[in-house]
């Protein structure tokens, strides 16, 4: 029985088929797109929150407060079910078809959620920039955007690297929620396999092993990155 399950489902667990990507490939796609887009959005937001005027700081604070203070599962349900449930959303062309697609909704939810967490940790890193670095930059005539692009951000991003790697692992783990809204990630394949064969140990065990391998791969990649970019920092 277990052999049958593996024979039938191994390809779905790993990559599915060219016109229906599933399993590991889908999980990786969800993780990478939401982490990249979340990071790209968080970068300007964190600078604005650390150094912007107060009318721009408090809406960003409110955004991170709400999205970090509520479970991602509820956020996903609101974006996937509740927004599409509204008549005016469903009847607006373009918007309706966007929210109808489960994959769009999950990527949107994961992106916003991880963006809130990354904004918070990058804000901390920007604020922790040593005064001396900024003063030295100003004394050399750097200001405004070039001060941030050349001095503050490169050093803040390096300092944020350990926390960022943590956030990527958390996002990887959070992508399992996609299975609850019909997106065929690793866990969805496992649930399908379980429903067909009623063998919980191989069905979910394979999924657990795949996720563990992914987590450990990400962790070792980030450790290498830290060794490269944080070499100048004293080791503790």
């Amino acid at each position, binding site marked *: 029985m277990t052999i049958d399950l593996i024979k039938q489902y191994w390809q779905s667990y790993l990559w599915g088929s060219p016109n229906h990507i599933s399993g590991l490939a889908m999980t990786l796609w969800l993780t990478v797109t939401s982490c990249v887009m979340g990071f790209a959005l968080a970068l300007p937001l964190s600078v604005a929150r650390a150094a912007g005027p107060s009318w721009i700081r408090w809406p960003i604070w409110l955004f991170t407060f709400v999205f970090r203070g509520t*479970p*991602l599962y509820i956020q996903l*349900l609101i974006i996937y079910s509740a927004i599409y449930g509204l008549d005016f959303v469903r009847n607006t062309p373009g918007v309706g078809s966007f929210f109808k697609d489960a994959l769009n909704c999950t990527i949107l939810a994961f992106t916003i959620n991880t963006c809130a967490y990354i904004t918070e940790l990058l804000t901390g890193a920007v604020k922790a920039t040593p005064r001396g670095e900024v003063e030295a930059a100003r004394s050399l005539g750097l200001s405004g955007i070039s001060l941030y692009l050349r001095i503050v951000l490169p050093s803040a991003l390096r300092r944020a690297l350990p926390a960022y790697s943590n956030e990527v692992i958390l996002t990887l*783990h959070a992508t399992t929620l996609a299975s609850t809204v019909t997106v065929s990630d690793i866990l969805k394949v*496992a649930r399908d396999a379980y429903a067909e064969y009623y063998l919980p*140990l191989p069905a979910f*065990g394979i999924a657990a092993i795949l996720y563990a391998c992914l987590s450990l791969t990400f962790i070792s990649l980030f450790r290498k990155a830290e060794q490269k970019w944080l070499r100048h920092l004293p080791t503790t």
Partner: protein
Amino acid sequence: MTGYLQQLLVGIGVTIEVATISLLIAFVLGLIGAAAKLSSNRWFVLAGSAYTTLIRAVPDLVLMLLMYYNAQYLLNAITDWLQQPQIDIDPFLAGISVLGFIYGAYFTETIRGAVKAVPRGQLEAAAAFGLTRWQAFSRILFPQMMRFALPGISNNWQVILKATALVSIINLHEVIYAAQAAIKGSSWPGGAQMFFYLSIAALLYLVLTTLSNFMFGYLEKRYAAGFERMAR
């Protein structure tokens, strides 16, 4: 509508209950795990490391389904063998044991780090004063360890609180379950019922996380009594 709102409040009560009991289980497991990882016995260290590494590498939802369905599967096998009717696992019991077991791994790391942050001299002094091992633990190590552990505990608590949202997937009647029941039973103009009830559920969570932030801020201040505040 007020009936549904009442159910939502009952649901958030279940959420608080599940989160609190899971936290206690996780904390105790964390103490045991930290003791194992800090012990001088090679096998205890190995078991502790396996626990923290494996559990933290696998997503909580996967572990939850893995443990829940396997426990039910084994239980069915046993009742079949004894020719007894099927017993369904209580979702509440399943929720607290699974969450407690998973977050015990995170607590192990938190507590291990905090114990290592307490200066060795403190325990040596306790031994020099003739304190027993239990006295040294409960009067010297634990109170000082808590100061270092509190930020981690506060973080873990927030994660557990939000992870309780997942136990509706294994049929526990907590706040999201109540919200979904309310959605099924009502129909609003413009299809807004889903938006309304899910937002209320989100708001209830937001209140909980905010309140616990304040509570942990207070606790951190208490356990920091006698220490200088870090310069800001």
